[in-house]
């Protein structure tokens, strides 16, 4: 899915837990997530801590979208 969207010249960042699979299907900008059942959260943390973790991941994703790359990159 990632590749076809990128074919339109749209920069796309893939936030995912299993990075090797994202590499295999051809994503170019990859941001590792926290865990499969809760990629952008952690139920063991307080809501405030969780929000901060989520924000950090999304900020990393936005910075990945602004970074020129020539090959598949895990941020």
């Amino acid at each position, binding site marked *: 899915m990632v590749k076809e*969207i990128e074919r339109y010249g749209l920069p796309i960042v893939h936030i*995912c837990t299993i990075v090797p699979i994202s590499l295999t299907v051809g994503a170019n900008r990859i941001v590792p997530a926290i865990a499969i059942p809760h990629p952008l959260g952690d139920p063991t943390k307080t809501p405030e801590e969780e929000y901060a973790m989520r924000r950090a991941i999304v900020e990393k994703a936005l910075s990945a979208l602004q970074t020129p790359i020539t090959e598949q990159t895990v941020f």
Partner: protein
Amino acid sequence: MSGYRIVHYMNQFFGGIGGEESAGIKPESRSGAVGPGMAFSKALQGKAEIVGTVICGDGYFAENMDEAVEEVLRLIGEFKPDAVITGPAFNAGRYGTACGSVADAVGKKLKLPVVSGMYQENPGVDLYRKSVIIIPTSDNARGIKDAVPAMTNILLKLLSGEALGDPRTEGYLERGIRVNTFHPRSGAERAVDMLVLKMRGEKFETEYPMPVFDRVAPADPIKDLKGAKIALLTDGGIVPTGNPDRIEASSATKYATYSFEGVRSATSDLYQTAHGGYDPTYANQNPNRVLPLDVLRDMEDEGVFAKLHETWYTTVGNGTPVANGKKFGSEIGAQLKKDGVDAVILTST
């Protein structure tokens, strides 16, 4: 009236009705050949005849797939054909998918020989290669003069009940189906032959190619984040409560489109997960853990980026075969481009 009765399926453009503006037309039929059908009629001269053409708008087909296929099949059936041709669709994504879907249904439900044609990068190929005979064509309509004879030749073979041989020699796209075959030499001898060639650095052909994925070059980065419109997608299966579009829990065959209009956060009263591939407890407690709407809305207010695209897309990613991923990606990408989106965030579980 000579030989076999053929029905030809095509879209609104090739049917001469119009371009994108007529993409919404419902299935309709015409007697005899239309547009590219003329070329097929000449090629089939004496052996078969195009007794009818069924036309459907690509837009209507894509948005109402189940009803469209049913109606197209009904119209095809009315001509009592011996076989069906769909396309050729060249590199038109939605048309290729429609041709594949109709051909698949004709094969499975009407149990008639059917042949289709499209460019090998067309999303319809990966979606239907396993069940439909697809002839590779060039990526634009100028390739019609090569596509017609190739498709006609295979169609006549199917009609004569002749089993199709190797795709490489017969000229249709490899369907990716493993079939058993007997070699002149035993497996052990073939293995030692192969090892000797490999060690000498000479060419050899493996009998089982490991699955491998092709690459796409990275898109340029966004220059100005502050002025950018960002879209959010997920294949983590987050859907509005109740899963209104019935997205399947695994190997989803469709994606859904919803709006963030008036929504500040992906809360558990509004959203749930439809995904069957992981423990749903945490996503259902707080869907933001998969679809980070709360953070993106705050960033939008702070002016980190200009606009969060109100339309968002969702499907179920686990085990989604590559084929569906290709179709979803090309359709969603086209729409995002049209909506002026500058960059995309995709979350997966």
